[in-house]
């Protein structure tokens, strides 16, 4: 299992889940892992996107974990370029086959503080 730790953004702790690591997990374990990290207040960076089935599971699991004053849910950011690959919102559908695209998932109240595009730009700069 290989794991890299990307830089903090605005002092918010990030946790990278690599494609290799993600592929080794069972479907429900992937969702549990994401939610565990997010509920710990971290931003999770997925090296690869979620399938439609995983997205369904993630929404369902998120709803079951919401607790007043404790956890109000998640927000998700993917790079604008990945959304618009084939034009418009449906270009995002390329992601259903899990193309390599970064996905950022975080607690609702923390991801609001991070500009998604700035984040992906800084991550890209760091990688280069």
């Amino acid at each position, binding site marked *: 299992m290989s794991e890299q730790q990307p830089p903090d953004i605005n002092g918010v702790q990030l946790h990278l889940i690599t494609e290799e690591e993600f592929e080794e997990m069972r479907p429900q374990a992937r969702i549990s892992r994401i939610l565990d990290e997010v509920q710990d207040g971290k931003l999770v960076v997925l090296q690869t996107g979620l*399938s*439609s*089935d995983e*997205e*369904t599971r*993630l*929404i*369902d699991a*998120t*709803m*079951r974990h*919401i607790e*007043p004053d404790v956890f*109000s*849910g*998640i*927000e*998700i*950011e*993917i790079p604008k370029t990945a*959304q618009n690959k084939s*034009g*418009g*919102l*449906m270009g*995002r*559908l390329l*992601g*259903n086959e899990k193309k390599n695209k970064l996905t950022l998932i975080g607690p*609702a109240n923390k991801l609001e503080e991070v500009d998604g595009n700035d984040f992906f730009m800084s991550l890209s700069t760091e990688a280069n």
Partner: protein
Amino acid sequence: MSVLASIRNSLSGLFGSSRGPKQIGVYGPPNGGKSTLCNRILRDWTDDEMGTTSHVAHETVKVKSKDNVVIEHEDYEVQINIVDTPGVATKVDYTEFLDEGFERDDAVRRSREATQGISEAMHWLKEDIDGVLYVLDSTKDPFTQVNTMVTGIIEGQDIPVLILANKIDLDDSDVERIIEAHPDKDVVPLSALEGDNMDEVYAKIAAKFG
């Protein structure tokens, strides 16, 4: 659509439509006008209504369905089951209900009901929905992550979808923005509240799901 549902649909296609009316789910973000649309459809074609509507987000907290709604026209006739769903979101914060004037206990109760309703809506989408009317408020930005995610889920499950650009009666409605967001989909402008352009909505429903 689950594997079993896909097989079931394929078989019904081979041997006739023994399964009966298709289940048409009305999905979309909170406050897009889903329940208003359901009420409009039911008022137009039955003597019933689906439920209450309000400006408060997550007013619909349970999936509701009305079976055997027959939409008739000289050129078509289609029989469907209409399934109204809670607005899908990835976060539900009870403090938003406090902002609407609810007491804390009520706000917490509503937020819990909303989370259960969203889970239920996702289960229906995965198992029991044959087609989707995706209702968007045309005065709002359609390029949100939740819309991206939910329309991606719908497409990923090969469920036919009709995009409805609602609230065209409002001054700041921008249907072009929704068409731009869904360039490869049928987008129908309407006002469910005022009943504007419902003839085209029904014709598209018949063509897409009939």
